[in-house]
Structures are given as structure tokens and as C-alpha cells.
């Protein structure tokens, strides 16, 4: 609660409307999602203008098994801020969910401190020549009333009831067009 006397001082000591707002570091902005497959050049989903009009690289993979990792970045900072590090630090409150086209399989390759899946890395098994949508969702699931809401079996919940049946909030939900080339 704001004490009375500072409130009075603010009445007198005005900030300017004509100036740009002060740089806030209290924001939590993600502009960029990078998919790295077999240590190749990342495929990028990016919306630096935050205007709902992103550029998305089409993803192409060969038939077979691939090591996949994902990074989340705030490209408005210079150099870009890597939000992935914060996700790793708070791994027990985060999980990345992967929705792959029919015929593909996804296996999560990492875990948080509680032994629950994290999903920043994993293995993508590509079938014969095929294409479809690859959707990556980062779910932030902070404790509610001091109780953890990230629990076992959430990937199954997402698979059967959809992402929206999960606890917490969606921080990232982006879709890449993926195709398999011989």
C-alpha cells in the first residue's frame, strides 16, 4: 500500500506524458522461437513487431530420428535475451508440449528436478514422406496457494483433452509447417 505522504509528493512531482515511458524490465516478452534439429541451422518463428504477423520458417527434416531442441528469446533486447534459461531455472513450473502430425512421434528427452518431463529437448521420429503442423506450447504453471500444479501425466491430459485443459497459462504457442523429404 502506498503511504499517504509519497502520494502527495507524486501529485507535485509529475512525470512527463510527452516522453517515452521509462524502460521497464518488468515485462516478460517472447518474440522468437528457435527449433534446432540435429544441430543444424535453427528454424525460426519470429514476431519482433508483436503485431500478430510473424515470419515462420518452414521446417524440413529427413526420414528417421532427430534430436530436437527449442529456445525462447526476447529479440527486443540487444543482444536478444534468452528466456530458455529462466524456464530451465524454474523447470518445476514449466513444461513444453509438442503436437506433431499423424505418423510422427515425439519423445521428451529432459526432466525437471521432480522427475517430471520438461520438453526443451527430445527426439522426433519422422515417418515416410509426409507433412503437417508442428505446434510447440510452453506452459507456465506457477504454484497456486503454495501448491504445485505441474503434476505427472500432463502430456497425456494435453493429448486427450487438449492444451486448454492444462493448469497454468500459455506463454508460447506457435505452429511450424513441417515436411519430410527423402
Amino acid at each position: 500500500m502506498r503511504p499517504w505522504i509519497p502520494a502527495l509528493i507524486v501529485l507535485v512531482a509529475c512525470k512527463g506524458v510527452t516522453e517515452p515511458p521509462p524502460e521497464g524490465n518488468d515485462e516478460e516478452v517472447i518474440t522468437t522461437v528457435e527449433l534446432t534439429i540435429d544441430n543444424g541451422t535453427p528454424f525460426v518463428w519470429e514476431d519482433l513487431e508483436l503485431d500478430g504477423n510473424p515470419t515462420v520458417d518452414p521446417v524440413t527434416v529427413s526420414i528417421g530420428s532427430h534430436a530436437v531442441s527449442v529456445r525462447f528469446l526476447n529479440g527486443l533486447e540487444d543482444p536478444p535475451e534468452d528466456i530458455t534459461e529462466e524456464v530451465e531455472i524454474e523447470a518445476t513450473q514449466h513444461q513444453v508440449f509438442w503436437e506433431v502430425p499423424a505418423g510422427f512421434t515425439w519423445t521428451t528427452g529432459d526432466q525437471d528436478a521432480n522427475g517430471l518431463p520438461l520438453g526443451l529437448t527430445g527426439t522426433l521420429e519422422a515417418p515416410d514422406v509426409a507433412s503437417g503442423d508442428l505446434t510447440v506450447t510452453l506452459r507456465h504453471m506457477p504454484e497456486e496457494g503454495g501448491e504445485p500444479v505441474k503434476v505427472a501425466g500432463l502430456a497425456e491430459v494435453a493429448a486427450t483433452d487438449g492444451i486448454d485443459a492444462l493448469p497454468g497459462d500459455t506463454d508460447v504457442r506457435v505452429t511450424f509447417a513441417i515436411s519430410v523429404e527423402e
Partner: protein
Amino acid sequence: MALLVFSSPAWADCDAKVSGHVTDAASGDPVAGARVEVGAASAVSTDDGLFVVRGVCPGPAELHVHHLEYAGFSRAVEVPADHVDIALTVDECAVVVEAPAFSDRDPHARTTVEGEALERSRGQDLGEVLSTVPGVTLLRTSGDATRPMVRGQYGRRLLILFDGMRHESQKWGADHAPEVDPFSADAISVVRGAAGVRYGPDAIGGVILVDPPPLRRDAGVGGRVDVVGVSNGGRGIGAFRLDGSDGHGLGVRIEGDLAKGSSLSAPDYVLGNTASQTLNGAVTLGWTRDGLELEAGFRHHAFDAGICYCVRASSPDELRAALEAGTPPNAALWKTDRTIDRPRQEVTHDLLYAKAKAYVGIGTLEATFNTQLNHRQELEQVRDTVEGPQYDFTLRTHTLDVGLLHDSVHLGSLATLEGTVGGVAQLQDNLFEGLPLVPNHRAASAGAYVAERLSLGHTLVEAGARVDHQHRDTYLTDEAFFRHVGRGTLDADTCTDTGVARRCPGDWSAATVTLGGIWHDAQERVELRLDLSSASRFPNGDELFLNGAAPTQPVYGLGDPGLRTETTWGAAPTLGVHLPGVRGEISAYGNWIDDYIAFGPVLGPDGTPAVDVTVRGSFPRYAFTQTNAVFAGLEGQVEVEATRWVTASLTGAMVRAAERGTGAYLPLVPADRASLTVRVNPPHLGTFDGASVGASVDAVARQDRWDAGTDLGPPPDGYVLLGASASLPVDLDTEHLRFGVEVANLLNARVRSYTSLLRYFADDPGREIRVRAGMDF
């Protein structure tokens, strides 16, 4: 405040006056509408209880006072006379009414909550206090706060005046409750219908007048203390008011209250993270001498509240999933807890003002200057490395208001003309930090008005006109500017580059008129009122420049810098009946709103809803557009005295709203509702006089008039809620004690109301038992 004087012909040598003040002998509150007669001349007391009888012959005379609810009063006076104080006692035979059905001589439909009705609401916020008024609906936010809706309008289409001053807050957010302290009031009036001339811009749906009691004038110290406990949320509330005066014109008031509550509970689960804390404090100083009245005050309000964990609006699909789930997914984890966790709001509102009032030869001149600082911080659920608020808005407003209430002019033998001319000047700054939503702006506004009332015996005619203008410079960041230009929503040439921001100017004008009349029969048993009024509002910053995820709705929102002034034209007849044992009022209305600013889905070139792809998923694109709308409805209240002991009160309201032309329904219009209250008031209990017990039934229909295109989920079912109450006043020699208990949702029924932001996610809070004790001294 409206001053109205009925006067008899002024004889050549009878030009003296008698003035004074009418109060309630028990409460000391001013009594409005009392007819004061001196010889052949008479006057009616104003809202402040003041009266001036003009055209009286000098010398000894008999003064008679008549009021429907009070026993008659007579005394001798020596004309001319000032400061004639008249204390009226309640007429035991008169019908006791919860809220006076008859207006304070206002052609608008108008209800005042005061006295016993206001006592019964102690501990509730403004929206809850007014929810018993016909035509007013409670809009529940996503935490422990509500806001009032009048005739289906709220927020930016509803004006709140605290002690006559416009309450300037950030009305654009659906879950921003008004920062007004009901403990500070001794009367809260709802003026229903457009009232732009008398009150200025934004009075589209109506005006809420929160009026504190007058400062103490007798030497000594007095005050009140209130303690309230509320079962749901385990809330404790304490309030005090101290009034002092030296008896020579100096009056001082110090008041404050604190409310603290933990999470609210729905019948089947706790609404996680709905704890809240409210603090109010104020100091008021007044000085009166030789017809000059000065007053200055400072008020501080602080509100800190959690937003229910259950509100999950990441995407339209998620919202639909929450609606289908019935019970929030993690409800089992939530506990009754005093901790206010993220997501939460932290709001402060400060008001500093000075008023002067003096008689200047042709009338009473009143000038008010006030500065308001509204600061709102929204803290979202974020990763631990992020501290502080994600949204931070400051609204700074300076307002100068000058009005002249000219002396009544006698036109011939029957007619009296009364009126006010005035002007308002305002400077308002909006500043943000953190995530942009409403850009920085500076708005300079000015308005001028004239309103006159002609009294012709049993008839009163009111007419007025007003003009307002606003110039607003909006300062966009480069990112926001290019985002708009890129979208094609802003013409780059309209803005100039100041080097640090893009200044985008805009001008808006409004002209409003009012014409109304009141007629009553000689016995004042039937009163007919007709109100033809208009009101306007200027587009808000978010409506002009929003570009991004919208607050409280899972959509991508786009503002339109080209929006024009919105204007409503209203017609409302009101019939009041006041017969022995029966008292009632019914109002009908139609409001035609031109250039109604609506927020709705945008269709793509192929006719399907447009979608924007953000990093958090795909969102339907919504935009602010202007259309024409119509709101029409009926509301009323009838009170019947079944026996001397038992009164029954029935209120009801219906609102219909649609877009003109297409007939499409508008969102968030309250469903039809009716409420029956039966109260038993045993008479002649001596020390306990005024004790009562009551029971109530509230029935709300399902809102079947909704449009799947503008609402993301179907409306909830209708419901019936039971309530009960009891109050016990105790009159001691020097103190007056008040005890009461009120029970809402007695059967702990599971309901969701259409006008609740929680309704997609969780049930409304369940049973609430409120116990209150108060003391006047």
C-alpha cells in the same frame, strides 16, 4: 444540487425572506422536499435541507412545514429571518420507504439510498450498495470487487460524482471497480438515463451521486463507529468518522476505514486468490462566515486484490474449455487464504480539493478545484526473475468547476424561474509504464452549460444545453506508431515526430440538450415526469490506440484513431404514485445511441472471422468500431403497507439492447430481474424503536438475447436467491447504537450471473452472512 423555490406573488411591500435548514430530528440529516410556508409564500427544501422563502411580508408570521414522511411543524417567526433551523420528527403513520420513490424534483428517474437502507449495506462496496436500486445491476469483477451498471451501462458510460466532483478513474478495464468509499456517504443517489447537461460527458447510462453528510456546525464533537464482519471470505471491516466544530463556522472531519478479507468461497470450492484489502482515509475542513463557505479536503483510497486463479483466458479455446469443465481444474488445491498472490491489482486513488461558495448579489457562486491521482498496477503471474507490475497506469486529472445558481426570478403571479450557468475546465494526463495498452496522452477539455427550471404551481419544466470540447495529444512510442501504420489503422501524416515520441493530436466536440417536466396533482399523490435528454462521451485512449492482446478477453484488439464522439438521445417517462399504504414508481426509457463504440470481431475478406497469430497462439481479431445502438427498458418499484407492521416491496427491471439496423444483440446486457422484500417493523418498542426483520427473494432470468458472434460462451441459467435481514437500533441517552445481520444467498445456491466476469470460469461466491454493529455519538 438543484435548488427549487415555489413562490407566491411578490407584493410590492412584501420582499423580505425567511431562510433556514430542515433536518431529521433523529438523525440530524438534511430533509429534502419539505414545503415551508410563511404566510402566502412558500418554498421547498433542497437536497441539502436548505430553504429560502422569498416575497414574505415583514413582521411576525406563522411558519408551517409539511412533508409526507414527517409530522407537521409550526412555529412563529419574525420576518425577515435567517438560520431558521427546523427539526422534523417522523410521522408514525407514514409509510416507511427504503429509498424515497419521489425524486428530488428531478425529471429523471432517480433513487436515493440513505438512512436505514444505507445502514443495512454497511461493509459493502459501491456496486453492492446500489444493487437494490431498480435499474441497477451488479457487475462482478474477477476478484473481490463489483461495479454498478445502470440501465445496462457501466464504466465509461456511467458517471460517478463524489461530493459533486467527477470521479476520474481508469474506466476502460472491465474489472476496474470504482475507487469510492461508501462509508463516506450518507446518501447515494442514482440518476437513471442520459444526463449530459447537468453532469457533463460520460453520463450516457446515468449518474451516481455519492454525497457525504454536511460538516458539523454545532459546537462539540460527534461521530460514528462501525464494525462489520462478513462470513464469506472472513472479512473484517472497521470504520470511523469524527466530526468537530467550534460552533462559529469551523468544521473538521476525520474519517477512515479498513477492510481485510481472505479468499471468497463458492458453494463447492474456494475461489483461489480472491483475498483483498481496502483502506480509505480522509480529512475535511470547512469554514463558514457571513455567507461565505469554504471547504478543503484530501482523500486517499488503496485497494489491493487478487484475481481468481480460475480466470484462465489464454485463448478462446481455453475459455470454452473452462466453461465446459464446470468446476475450475485446480479448485481442490485452493484454500481460504489471506495472501494476495499474483495475478493481482494494486490501486490507489487520491483526491485533493478546495471549494468556495458565496452569494454574489444575483445568486450563489460555487467554485471547485480538484486534483485526482489514480494509480493502477496489474501484476501478472510471471517467472520469479521478473519483479514488479507488468502494467502500470497513472491518470492525473485537474478540474476547475464554476457554477452560478442565480436567484429565482418571479414571472407573473404563478411562475418562478430558477437556474444555473457554469463552466468546467479539465486537464488530464495518462501515463504508462511496462506493457503498453493505453498510450500516454494529455487531454484538455472545457465545457459550458446553462439549465433553467420554470415552476408553475403543480408543473415544473426544465430545459438546458451544454457544449464540450476536448483536445487530446496522444504520445505513441515508435513501436506502437509503426505497428499502427503497418496495420493501416493510423495515417502516418496525422502524427508528428517530437524526437522522443510520435504526437498524434485529436479534437472532439459534443453538444447536449435536456428538456424535461414534472407534473403532480394537488395532493401530490400522482407525479408524472418526462425526461428528454442527451449525453455524449469522447473516445478513450484504448478505443483509439489499442493494438495487441486485449485485457480480460482472449482476443487481439485494435483501436481506431478516427473514432468520433458517441452521443445518446434518451426519452424516459416516469410515473410516481403515492397513496395511503401504496407507493411506487415506474420508468420506461429508450436510449438511441449514435456512433456507439463497440468492440467486436473483425471479418476477413472471405467473410470468416479474422485471426491474428501471436507468440501465445492464434486470437480472433476484435476492433473498436462505431455503429448505432438502441437501449430500451422498464424498471420500477412498488411498496405496499400490508398492515401497520408489514411492508412488501417489489422491484423489477428489464433492459433490451441491440444494434440498430442489424438487430444484433449487444453483450453484457443484464437479464430480466425481479425482487420481493417483506419487512416487519413492530411499532412502539421504546428504546428499540425502529427494529425490523425482513426476508427477500431475488429472481434473475437467463439472458436469452445474446449473440454467439460477440460472446465467447452461452449465458448461464437463471436463478432464484433467498435473503434475510434483521436490524435493531438501540437509543440510549447520548448514543445511538445500531445492530444488524444480513444473509445473502441463504441456501448457498450455486449460481453464475451473466454480468459477472467470473462466469466463464467459476460460480459466484456463495452464502454471505454479514453482521454489523455501529454507534453514533
